């Protein structure tokens, strides 16, 4: 009995291809029918809300304070537990970005992915870039500009200017909010001054440059080997020499306080933290993005600075 295929071979393959094409068509027709059912535009209110998108939630929080109920702010990085260097947008965020009239980014190499996101759509928006506002230059600047509290009013002013440009009608409200915001920074400024007054020159260390600017304002002396901080910031393991230096700072009590980035947890940073605890060096947790538990930027920064002050006092009180 000779074998005879039931169908010609090319027919079978055409069937297969037919099935695949049918799947493709079904996907697209499903998509089209769904789009018919969808709501093509958000319900409009009598008062148009200004769409603002911030790359990071702390700038977003400041923007919403400055804009009040006249703006709707979306922050792209809100999860305080995620490494902000690894980021993929979803469609909802991408759409908000395309529609935003004001876009706020940090710049200074921190959120380079924003550039490609902005290039993908031709929305008209004013981009407020903190790095530009602060005139950050150099080949390796510390990008954590939101810790540079004396300069934050400059950023707030730039954001307000952008809001006014996009929504001139609400200009007076925005300016009023700006004044209120600047005033609300007073406790922060006072806290920094207090730390400086009592602890200027005190040696401290951090796992990354995150709180760097605030420490500089408070005249605290940072002893972390630059290579160590840089490596952690890049997501690499520091070299053995830098790690050893860092460990010695703790074991020899050469520093009073360790500032630990709670959002970048690696075996090395965990180990440094444990070493600090066992060596009796107070640990202050700082975060890169604003935790969900804090309601405002000011609240966040103030609680961290307060913890720092207490830690410095604790270190001083030890023999």
């Amino acid at each position: 009995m000779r074998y005879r295929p039931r169908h010609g071979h090319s027919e079978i393959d055409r069937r297969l291809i037919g099935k695949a094409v049918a799947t493709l068509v079904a996907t697209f027709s499903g998509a089209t029918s769904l789009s018919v059912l969808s709501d093509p535009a958000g319900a409009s209110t009598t008062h148009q809300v200004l769409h603002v998108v911030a790359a990071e939630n702390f700038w977003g929080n400041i923007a919403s304070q400055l804009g009040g109920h006249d703006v709707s702010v979306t922050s792209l990085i809100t999860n305080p537990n995620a490494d902000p260097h690894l980021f993929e947008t979803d469609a909802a965020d991408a759409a908000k970005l395309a529609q935003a009239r004001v876009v706020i980014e940090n710049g200074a190499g921190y959120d380079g992915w924003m550039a490609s996101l902005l290039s993908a759509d031709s929305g008209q928006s004013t981009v407020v870039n903190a790095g530009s506002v602060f005139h950050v230059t150099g080949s390796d600047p510390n990008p954590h500009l939101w810790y540079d509290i004396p300069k934050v009013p400059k950023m707030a002013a730039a954001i307000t200017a952008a809001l006014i440009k996009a929504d001139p009608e609400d200009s007076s409200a925005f300016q009023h909010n700006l004044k209120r915001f600047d005033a609300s920074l007073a406790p922060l400024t006072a806290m920094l001054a207090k730390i400086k007054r009592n602890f200027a020159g005190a040696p401290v260390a951090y796992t990354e440059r995150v709180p760097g600017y605030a420490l500089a304002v408070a005249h605290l002396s940072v002893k972390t080997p630059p290579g160590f901080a840089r490596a952690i910031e890049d997501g690499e393991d520091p070299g053995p020499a830098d790690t050893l230096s860092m460990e010695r700072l703790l074991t020899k009590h050469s520093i009073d306080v360790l500032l630990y980035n709670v959002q970048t947890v690696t075996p090395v940073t965990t180990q440094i933290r444990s070493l600090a605890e066992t060596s009796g060096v107070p640990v202050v947790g700082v975060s890169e993005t604003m935790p969900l538990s804090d309601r405002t930027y000011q609240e966040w920064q103030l609680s961290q600075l307060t913890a720092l002050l207490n830690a410095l006092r604790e270190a001083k009180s030890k023999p």
Partner: protein
Amino acid sequence: MSPSSEPVIELQGAGVQMGSRTLWKDLTLTLRSSEFLAVLGPNGVGKTTLLKVLLGLVPLSSGLVRVNGAPPRRGNDEVGYIPQQRAFDANLPIRARDLVRFGLDGHRWGPPLRSRSYRQRVDKVLEAVGATSYADAPVGLLSGGEQQRLRIAQALLGDPRVLLCDEPLLALDLASQRAVTDLIDQRRRDAGTPVVFVTHEINPVLPYVDRILYLVRGRWAIGVPSEILTSESLTDLYGIPVDVLKVRDRFIVLSAEHHLSTEPGSHAHPHHGEG
């Protein structure tokens, strides 16, 4: 194609060197239509290299070679090549007919053409070797005998004027060995195509062999089986005592030092490339 007395393959004083090592030298032989030449010798001696020279893949270091009156060139349809069987992955998306079709247009640039005449030619040659029943089967699922039939079909597509076979019976069962050899010989009989058959087992092809070329470490001898397969000839070639026993129609070659495999069903570990 009618057989002619023009030499199909000519070697004159041919030699091949690999680096500083000489494989064989001063090789002179002529192959004419309808001739079945078996090439024997221990592993590594250069049997496959001889085929590569005839395929135009390896140049001679000395001497002269002619295939159909011209120097050998790669991709010559007139030279049919039948390799030993190889393992194909069971999932490989190549059917028997695709493997055979390589012999027709596998070397041409461009995407595959849906050519009816190509398909007919492939069908025809599949039928000639008795492979029609598994023409659409994946090659990875075929037995060795089935695969080797496809190899013959692949070579026949070019209507070759000579068939070069490189251990085509390796690891085949006896029935398949007979079937494959018979197909090859059938071509020889039908079209006068001479055959160069590299093997290390002479017995399966002995009934078909006209002459044997025996290569040993740089030396060679050529003649009819009764001349070559003698203790004297092989002792002279190998330079060590070698005994040739004839058991009924089969030859067994033994040496005092190690067993030189010419027993049916036995095979030394095949080397591919040098010999």
